[in-house]
């Protein structure tokens, strides 16, 4: 049985169908890439899985339990964590406190949360930043803080929404390394990313969305040769030119 199973997931915003009857599943232990042109509905899928929005139609099952319709904090308790494409740091608090608060809802007290936070901060390599205010970080470090905070909730499934957006070449390499390390530590990952080279490197399988619909699914190799995928991306370029 897959760890996460999404069936006929649909989301409408007024007249706009952002996600239309999308089905896919995530197996325990894998890294699944989720790609698609801008506005394809990737983030909206995450929002529904993570409980930030309710689906208009469809179901979501996590470890055999229906989770659609639950609130975001309940999803977090179930063992799913997400990062935000547009980062959401707690700006006036330190990096350490950001991570510590994420650990708090799973801890019995503050000292236990501190221990978890310290471990996660070491794991993600941000100890030099721990005392800094989260509002002072560069975008690269903010993206790492997003990941650290998600990890601190001790998830089994991690949803990463463009963790490499805005990073420079060296930072992208570090991010790839971190994602592989997270996966090795036993966590299942779904990652949305526009940087294809990086995505191909970390993903076991890839699901492709375009205009709200799933148009392809397969190994990185197969996806890079898939006609429908190439057309969808070319189409986007034509739009950009016109």
């Amino acid at each position, binding site marked *: 049985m897959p760890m996460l199973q999404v069936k006929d997931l649909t989301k409408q915003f007024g007249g706009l169908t952002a996600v239309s009857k999308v089905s896919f599943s995530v197996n325990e232990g894998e890294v699944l890439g989720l790609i698609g042109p801008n506005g394809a509905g990737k983030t909206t899928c995450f929002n529904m899985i*993570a*409980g*930030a929005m309710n689906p208009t139609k469809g179901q979501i099952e996590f470890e055999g339990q229906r989770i659609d319709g639950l*609130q*975001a*904090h309940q999803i*977090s*308790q179930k063992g799913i*964590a*997400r990062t*935000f494409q547009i980062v*959401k*740091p*707690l*700006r*006036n*608090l330190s990096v350490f*406190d950001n991570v*510590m*608060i*994420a650990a*708090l*809802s*799973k801890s019995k*007290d*503050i000292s236990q949360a501190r221990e978890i936070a310290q471990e996660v901060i070491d794991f993600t390599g941000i100890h030099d930043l721990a005392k800094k205010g989260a509002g002072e970080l560069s975008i690269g470090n903010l993206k790492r803080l997003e990941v650290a*905070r*998600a990890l*601190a*909730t001790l998830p089994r499934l991690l949803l990463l929404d463009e963790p490499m957006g805005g990073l420079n070449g060296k930072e992208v390499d570090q991010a790839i390394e971190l994602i592989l390390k997270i996966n090795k530590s036993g966590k299942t990952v779904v990652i949305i990313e526009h940087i294809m080279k990086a995505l191909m490197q970390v993903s076991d399988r890839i699901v492709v969305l375009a205009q709200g619909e799933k148009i392809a699914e397969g190994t990185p190799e197969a996806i890079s040769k898939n006609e429908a995928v190439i057309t969808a991306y070319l189409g986007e370029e034509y739009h950009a030119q016109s």
Partner: protein
Amino acid sequence: MNRQKSYIALSIVVLLLLPLFIKNQFLLHMFILIFLGVIYGQSWNLLGGFTGQISFGHALFFGIGAYGTAKFLTSDSLSKIGVIFNHQADPILAIIFGGLMTILVTFLMGTIIFRLSGPYFGLGTLAMAEIGLVIAMNLKSVTNGGEGILLLDTPSIGPFELMGKTSFYYLILVLMLLTVFFVYQIMRRKMGYFLLAIREDNQAAEAMGVPTKRYKILALMASAFLSALAGGFYTLYVGFISPHDVFSVHTSVEMIFITIVGGVGTLMGPVVGAVVLTVLSEVFKSYFDNAYLIVYGLLLILVILYMPEGIYGYLKKKWNARKKVMADADVAS
């Protein structure tokens, strides 16, 4: 840390001994007003400063606390509860009764009001306070309408009659210390960190596993309870309340000013704010007579413009910067 503790202990001892030396009634009255201001500043700050839910209607809680206390002391059936304990209508029980009434109201309004956020939340609370005023004016059988409620008997706590400024001084001092301690305890626990997370980013807090709605309601209840304590004390101290005295926008605004001038989102902010604003408003009153509100208003604008982090926040920043310079100099030498 220990030095901080000894400063606090020393201040408490000084405050406890103060009435032995101060015989000036007006000065005692000033202290009472300051302590009252600290309580409702802390109350507003807990929800507005720490949780980021800016309310314009805290007079509602102050008012319910005031009326709850007055009703407890004046209605035959209610004050009997006090008599069981104490042979007399007990003002402490009366204040607690006012606080519980307020918690009941916040419990009912919590789920509705937190559907709103940002400025809409502020307007929602303002409207709720206005509704409180209208009810107090019209529900004559309970509130005696616009005529208000007058306390006829001098309340006493056990053998101690609440007569004269000194006894009120000690009552409000204890309430104030309990309030500050209460807020301090909340803020160093899980709940405090959750409130800060909610203030900083509600959606991020949810994703981190914080049940934001539940904690916002808890913060509202705690905050409202503190305002109710202040309202209850007001009833005892003044001995007379009317709807326009206790449900007024002026009370709501005063709580905001105390917090903003002192320092939003800090434990010491409302303390500093209450001292500065109470002293200044009394001084201005004596110099400028009725025009004092203009001077007071100008001062507020200046503080907000030039010290947006409040007086305490500003001093703390200066102090930290100086410490840093001195530490750097140490390293250099």
